[in-house]
């Protein structure tokens, strides 16, 4: 598995906390493993948009990775509601349905970025660093310089 320099929160040096939202347990597990290779911590998971909103309120993550096609409430609407209540929320849409219309809709509703499935770790890593901006700091990869 590729090594990534861990991305920490610049304010306290703690791991970035993620909320992973996808109706597929398989997809959530894989994304969870991926963000752990970035030095992140999976603070919560949700399988639909309604649960995602409640989980966001409860755990206040640094980043939400949000699928689009889900039961009960789709990801774009959930992202919009989260951002309405928490304007600083960093929501990254992660979906296989990556056509122009969906991407524009998601960004207009307040999502910060869009990553197409299947997710490439190096792509998601760069997006995380970009979305964290000054609030995140990338350290040295394990084994780097050895």
């Amino acid at each position, binding site marked *: 598995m590729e090594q990534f320099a861990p991305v920490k929160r610049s304010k306290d040096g703690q791991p970035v906390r993620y909320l992973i939202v996808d109706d597929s347990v*398989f997809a959530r*597990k*894989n994304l969870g493993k991926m963000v752990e290779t970035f030095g992140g911590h999976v603070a919560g998971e949700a399988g639909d948009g309604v649960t995602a909103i409640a989980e966001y309120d409860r755990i206040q993550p640094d980043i939400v990775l949000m699928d689009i096609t*889900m039961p009960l409430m789709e990801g774009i609407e959930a992202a919009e509601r989260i951002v309405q209540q928490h304007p600083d929320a960093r929501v990254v849409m992660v979906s296989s*349905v990556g*056509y*122009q219309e969906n991407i524009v809709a998601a960004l207009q509703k307040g999502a910060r970025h869009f990553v*197409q*499935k*299947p997710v490439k770790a190096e792509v998601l890593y760069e997006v995380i660093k970009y979305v964290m901006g000054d609030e995140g700091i990338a350290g040295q990869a394990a084994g780097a310089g050895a």
Partner: protein
Amino acid sequence: MKMDLIQPFINAADAVLAPGLQCPMTIANLSMERESYSPHGVAALVALSGDIEGRIIFDLDPNTASRIASKFAGSDEPASDALAQEAVCELANQVIGNAVATLNDQGFNFRVHPPQLHLAGQGTRITEDTEAVVLCFETDSGNVSMNIALDYGATRVAAAGQ
């Protein structure tokens, strides 16, 4: 059955499965069917509605599903039945989502419905009066069958007739 709708699904299957399984993927067999469908193993059915109507079924034997789930999860352990079934649905989602992006960029608008899981031996028969293209992809982890039955939707046909 509209053959011009098939190519984006073949490209998408290659784009999703080959890097995930880290092996080349080849089309081992291609046939046309006009019969009701019964799952052979772990099958995920995804329906489309709108400018394009129909459905796509991914069907893998349980051992292949388990191997592919492990590969995608980056694990050496065999995946449980539940995880293998989840993996087949998620892979169907990813392949179809990628194909849909291509078709949407070509001007087709439609809705993708969440995958439905069907298992062999449960007596499920998917009946329809339409032709399907059946593609069998060969991978190092086993064969993946993709059964595609798609046609232009009523809205598209009406617009073309104007």
